[in-house]
């Protein structure tokens, strides 16, 4: 690199410094060739949605992993909290009747 970097660019010695422009984080979802739904693949930094899509193509589909991509701003995702895990998920654990396994399937019904 023959041209000096701009002064505000973080150097190797300042790993903890903010990234250039503080690019936001994006979550990447990939639909594989045989998959029906997009699956979370990972995350990346990008200045905007269009570039996020391109970075996702370069980072997550370079080994033919997918045929469709979604990128979502990480900040737009509302996640359940680990603290709420018991209240959220524990009660479903002992209710097997919620699974459709207690029904006799009539002989005439196919494809169930």
């Amino acid at each position, binding site marked *: *690199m023959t041209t000096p970097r701009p002064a505000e660019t973080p150097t190797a010695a300042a790993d903890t410094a903010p990234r250039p422009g503080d690019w936001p984080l994006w979550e990447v979802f990939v639909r594989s060739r045989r998959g029906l739904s997009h699956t979370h693949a990972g995350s990346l930094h990008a200045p905007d949605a269009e*570039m996020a899509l391109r970075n996702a193509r370069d980072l997550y589909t*370079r080994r033919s992993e997918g045929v469709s991509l979604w990128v979502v701003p990480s900040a737009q995702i509302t996640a359940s909290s680990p603290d709420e895990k018991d209240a959220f998920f524990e009660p479903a654990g002992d209710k097997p009747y919620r699974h459709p396994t207690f029904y006799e399937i009539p002989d005439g019904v196919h494809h169930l």
Partner: protein
Amino acid sequence: MNITATPALPLGDDALILSHRLGEWAGHAPVLEEEVALANIALDLLGQARILLSLAGDEDELAYLREERQFRNLQLVEQPNGDFAHTIARQLYFSTYQELLFNHLAATDSELAPLAGKAVKEVAYHRDHAHQWTLRLGDGTDESRTRMQRAVDALWRYTGELFEPVEGLETVPWAALHDSWAARITSTLEQATLTVPEGPRHGAWTAGAGRQGLHTEPFGRMLAEMQHLHRSHPGATW
């Protein structure tokens, strides 16, 4: 060294040399995501170079054992990376050219048609990558705009050579290719709020004899680095 006279040689040299230049960004790119993007483009080009050079002879001999004046690549692709804007300007100029040329070749019965048909999809992405970055740097901050304008201006004089007919490809409509190229470049630069350079592209004080084997000063140093390992350890394997 046996070298078959084929237009695959100059086109293969373009791909090989630009691939090496892009590879120099490894470990130096502004952000990790961009590093992978540039490496992907470099590897696409290396793949093209291997196929093209194999049509002209032994790919390793051609890449590692030729002297500077035996290379037939455009002077544009051997230009140093400079700052990121220079790399993007070089990508914009070259990938636009390569996409138009490969699109044309893919529809001919040339021996290059199969390679061109496959590579044109890769190259369309390379052009999109350069286009997107040109828009963002040109229409970005004062600093990025200044640097992008400086880069497109600095590399402008290397673009005249792109449309000099290549030996063996005389049937390519070079003038029409040039007009399409100029229209696309103008469109991208205007969208990016940049000024289309007006400097000379032909004649004295311009560049453009790479296809004849005349190269610019930085090329010799690049070649020394690229060939050093192979020449130091002939026939080495691992």
